[in-house]
Each structure stands twice: as C-alpha cells, then as structure tokens.
C-alpha cells in the first residue's frame, strides 16, 4: 500500500498485541485496533488503565520487547509497514519521523546524564550534528518549548528541574527532528493542573506550527475536549466507539463512553451531589469472544450482549461496537 498525498500519514490496521507467558495463558492487550491520522490532525486514544492504549502506542513505535510479545496487523507509514521493517530502519525512523512523549518526566529522563546531552544526542544520531552546532540547536529547542535560560539548563541534571520543566525537556527531545508523527502518552498525568494546561497549549501550538500528526493518549476527557479532532474510545484492548470530538461529546452512543462522560465532575452540579463512577472495575471483563467485555459493568446490558462479540459497525458518521447503544437525541422520547 502506498500513500497518496491526501491519504492518512499513519494508517494502523488490525493491530493486535499478545503477551505470551511460559506456563500461563496468553494475554491479548490490543485486539484488532485500527485508526488513521493525517498531518495536522490530532487523534485521541481514550480509555482507563489497562485498556490497551499505551501498548498500542508502543507497538506503533516498535518499542515493545521482542521476547514474549507478538504484534500482528499493519502499521503503514510513508508506504512502509513498520511492523515488517528491519530493526535498523525502524531506529532511523524513531526519533526522526516519529517521536514519543512519555507519561512520567521524572523517570523518563536519565538521572545521571545532563539535559543537554539527552537533547543533543538526538541531533547527533539523526542529523549528523556535533559539538557546538548541536548545542546551539538544543538551546534553541529548549527556548522554543518555553524553558527559560536554556544555556544553563543544558548543563543541569533532571533532578534540578521542576516537573513542568522536565516534561518540556522531554517534549523538546521528541520534537528535535520535527517528527511528522508525535505520540504523547498521558503527557500531563504527572503534572499539576496549571502546568497541565501549559503543556497542552504547547503541544497544540507545536502541532500547528509543524503540521505534525498528534496521537494523544489519555484517560482525561478534558484533554480530549481541548485538543483532539477525532476520538477513539478503547475498552479491554478494543475500540468500542470512535467519532469526531463534537459528536462524541454531544452524543455518546456506547454506554462506556456515556459512563466516562457522566463520571467527569461538573462545576455546575449541585453541592454535595454524588460523583457518578462507572460501577465495577476494569478487571470485571468478559473475554471478547464471549461477548461484550464491558457487559459485566454495563447499565444497558441485554441478553444479546453476551454469547457473541459485538461487531464494530459504522453508524451515522461514527463507528460503534454495541448491540444496545444509548439512544440518540431523536430517539429519546420527549
């Protein structure tokens, strides 16, 4: 498959990741996930812990361990299927064409190497820059992501920077070679709220400036509302609903999406109103071949939910994996 100029930049098809254990059953962490993302577009992968969203991103980047993990499906980028590329070709693409920002900036930076080295090593690896040129480029980069006094910061170690600064530094490293795809795996989870907003704003600006495609992995619907064009909601390794941001927020159809939206605390709710969690926990899952994995926690459960897996169907501009979806506005009796 080759991409035409107008086609998606990254085309993930039927991505399936299985963890195998000696003497134990296999675990299918990601099961037939497909999505496309185009330049300048932001795609959200949403779901709670264990839904497979991080594993999806690691599989796309080729960062899963080779042992005891099997990755199937296709990840087309620039006409190549990344899953079949030789390891060294994949190393050339990582950090240059596709980059990733991780969740915890404290543990994602090497504690015993100065920030400067951790930034310049990307230039050295992919752009043959060395010495003063690489240092200058690194200082400019830190300045661009909003780190004041970059010359001094380059010499410092991660523990000397605040959490927000560290995340900016990680973003700088990811953006060093102006990647065409940027994957951000919960980049704001470890930060406090005011810093979260700044980091999201920064990502938004950078994507707009460079025309990169952004894949935003999050469990925070607030982040999705502020940033994403399209949203894929994942549950137990499968996409259960995907739609444009407006449609999804205005009218969630999958009961899980509805539950996620209802569980967001609202400022306009009456004082003392109880929070509305989704009952049960993500460990109460049915295995997909036996029916809908969400069925054990689903308020809309009917008999048809169990027995066979619900198919992913296109319904009115969105895709949905549910046999008894929430009603649309027209369907709701007045």
């Amino acid at each position: 498959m080759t991409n035409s100029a107008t086609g998606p930049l990254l085309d993930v098809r039927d991505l399936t990741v299985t963890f195998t254990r000696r003497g134990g059953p296999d675990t299918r962490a990601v099961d037939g996930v497909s999505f496309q993302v185009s330049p300048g577009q932001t795609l959200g992968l949403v779901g709670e812990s264990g839904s497979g969203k991080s594993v999806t991103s690691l599989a796309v980047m080729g960062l899963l361990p080779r042992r005891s993990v099997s990755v199937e499906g296709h990840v087309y980028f620039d006409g190549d299927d990344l899953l079949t590329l030789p390891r060294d070709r994949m190393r050339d693409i990582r950090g240059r064409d596709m980059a990733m920002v991780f969740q915890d900036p404290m543990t994602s930076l090497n504690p015993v190497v100065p920030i400067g080295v951790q930034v310049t090593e990307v230039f050295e690896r992919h752009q043959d820059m060395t010495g003063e040129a690489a240092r200058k480029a690194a200082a400019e980069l830190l300045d661009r992501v909003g780190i004041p006094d970059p010359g001094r910061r380059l010499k410092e170690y991660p523990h000397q920077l605040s959490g927000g600064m560290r995340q900016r530094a990680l973003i700088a490293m990811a953006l060093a070679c102006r990647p065409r795809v940027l994957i951000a795996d919960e980049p704001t989870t470890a930060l406090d709220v005011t810093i979260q907003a700044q980091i999201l704003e920064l990502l938004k600006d950078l994507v707009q400036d460079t025309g990169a495609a952004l894949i935003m992995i999050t469990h925070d619907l607030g982040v999705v509302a502020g940033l994403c064009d399209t949203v894929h909601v994942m549950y137990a390794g499968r996409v259960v609903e995907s739609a444009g941001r407006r449609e999804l927020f205005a009218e969630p159809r999958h009961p899980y999406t509805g539950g996620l939206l209802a569980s967001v605390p609202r400022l306009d709710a009456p004082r003392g109103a109880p929070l509305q969690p989704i009952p049960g926990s993500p460990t109460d899952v049915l295995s997909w071949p036996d029916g809908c994995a969400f069925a054990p926690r689903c308020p809309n459960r009917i008999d048809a939910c169990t027995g066979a897996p619900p198919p992913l169907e296109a319904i009115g501009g969105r895709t949905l994996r549910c046999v008894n979806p929430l009603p649309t506005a027209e369907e709701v009796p007045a």
Partner: protein
Amino acid sequence: MLKFVVRRLLLLGPILLGLSVLLFFWVRALPGGPAVALLGERATPESLARVEQLYGLNQPWYVQYSKFLTRAVQLDFGNSTQTNRPVTEEMARTFPATFELAVAALLLAVAVGIPLGYLAARHYGRWLDNLSVTGSLLGVAIPVFFLAYILKYVFAVRLGWFPTQGRQDPRMDADHPTGLYVLDGILTGNLEASWDAVMHLVLPAFALASIPLAIIVRITRASVLDVVHEDYVRTAEAKGLWERTITRRHVLRNALLPVVTVVGLQAGLLFSGAILTETVFAFDGVGRFVAEAISNRDYAVLQGFILVIAALYVLINLAVDVSYGLIDPRVRVK
C-alpha cells in the same frame, strides 16, 4: 566537596584511636607472649624476663599503651620481635607486594566481572546467563586456598605455564625503587623483570579475584536487569539511538552505581583477604607476614599493620564515596 572529604578524614582519628585500644588488648589476650614465642616453651624464667624487659613488656599496661600511642602518631610502631627490624621497614617491604597483588586481582575482577555481568543480563535466561550465574556461585563457594592450590597444581606444576611461587625469579637482577615489581621494571627500563613479575602475579591474582569477581558479576547482572526496564531506557529507544549509545550512556552509567560500592568494599577486603593466597604462593606480602606475626605473638607488628590496614580501608571507602558523587549527580556533595 572539600568539606566532606576533610570531615571524613577527621573521623579517621577517633576510628583509629578506638581501634588502637581494642588491638592493644586483643594482642595481649593471645595465650603466651612474644618472649615465649621467641625462646620456646622450655626457656628459663630469667631469660624470659630479660626479653620482656628488652621490649618493655614488663611495664604496666597503661605505660605500654601510652608509649605505643605516642610513638604511633609519629609513625613509629617499634621493632618486630620476629625479625628484630623496625615495623615500618617491614611495612615498606610487604605493603607494595600486597598492593600489587590486590590491584591485579581487582583489575581482573572488574575487567572480567562487569562485561560478563552485562552479557549475562542481556542474555537473561539463556545459556550464557546460566553459565555465569553458576560460575559466580562456584567462585564464591570454592574456598580460596583450595582454588589457589588447584591453580598452582594445574597451571604451574603440571603445565608449567607460570612460576609456582614468589614475586620474581630470585636469579633476576632487578632494582626495586618502589617495591612494586612490575612498576620497578618499567621505571628502571628492565622490561624483562617487569614481565617476570607479571607472570608471578597471574595465578595469585586469579585466586584472590575469584570472590570479588563472582560478586561483581552478580551485582552487575542484577543491576543491568533493573536498569533496562527503566523508563529512560525506553525514552532512549524512542529517540532511535544506536544500541551502543543506549548501552554505554543510558544503561551502564546507571547500572554501575551499585557496582562501584561493591568494588570499593571488596578493594578493602583484598588487603586483609590475601593471607591464604599469599601463603599458598609464598608471596611475600602483608597477609603472610601478619599471619606469621600472630603465631609469633609479634605485638608490635600486629598493632602497626592492622592500624594501617584499617586506615587504608577507611581511605578506600572515602575514595568510593567521592567517585560515587562523580557518577551520580544526585548524591554529589555540595
């Protein structure tokens, strides 16, 4: 940094003072005494009294101790009753020998242990890993004197590859300005003498290195296994860095921190642990001399040597703490 070093050096005083008290009474608690050891069981009381008077052993203990202390601070530890030469002279003869042996053993343990531990971790669960784990278990479990005899029998007696004992061929015409025979040969331009000293070092160094080598392999392996799963190694992979850059800069620099501590502790132990090896290979060093001093109740030698060994131990550990700060900026002392 300087403050830290000075503070630690000042601590050396009280440590050595306390140790000197313990030592003073410990050597006198040994059954018999230097006079009996020198003159034998059947010596007359008069001749014993004469010897005791000669060495001041008939004085009350507090007089003996204060004399010992006032002379010790001037680095005078009295005369050996075994050889009747000043203890400091015996130190000048034996310390370089043991120092040379300990350094050779440590170099061997580090040069082999760290790469082997790293490779074992990288081949986790495969034959190389199993071999190095089993091998290091054997290295710790086999008594040093047994290993020393085996090495000597196989490689010196049977195969004749190495000399069986001593530090240098006695027929060798060599000068010894420093007492470090390998270095002496280089300094005096007598490379043949250097090479002969190296050949004499090989087997004892192997025997002495067995335990530290095994420990270094184990620690390096465990530490690398921890570090390769750290988030910052994943970040480095996401940058598309070459594997050797990741290994050197991101894995080893972090994984070696605990190894440095162990190497320091082992370095101190080598000095006191060389007794068995030196005895088997008739290597004229500290361990052998101190062992003889114990059976001869050579108070002056025991007191002096053990104090100096303790001081060395403290200094080596100080050096380890300082070097730790050089590798890990988080513990760098201000």
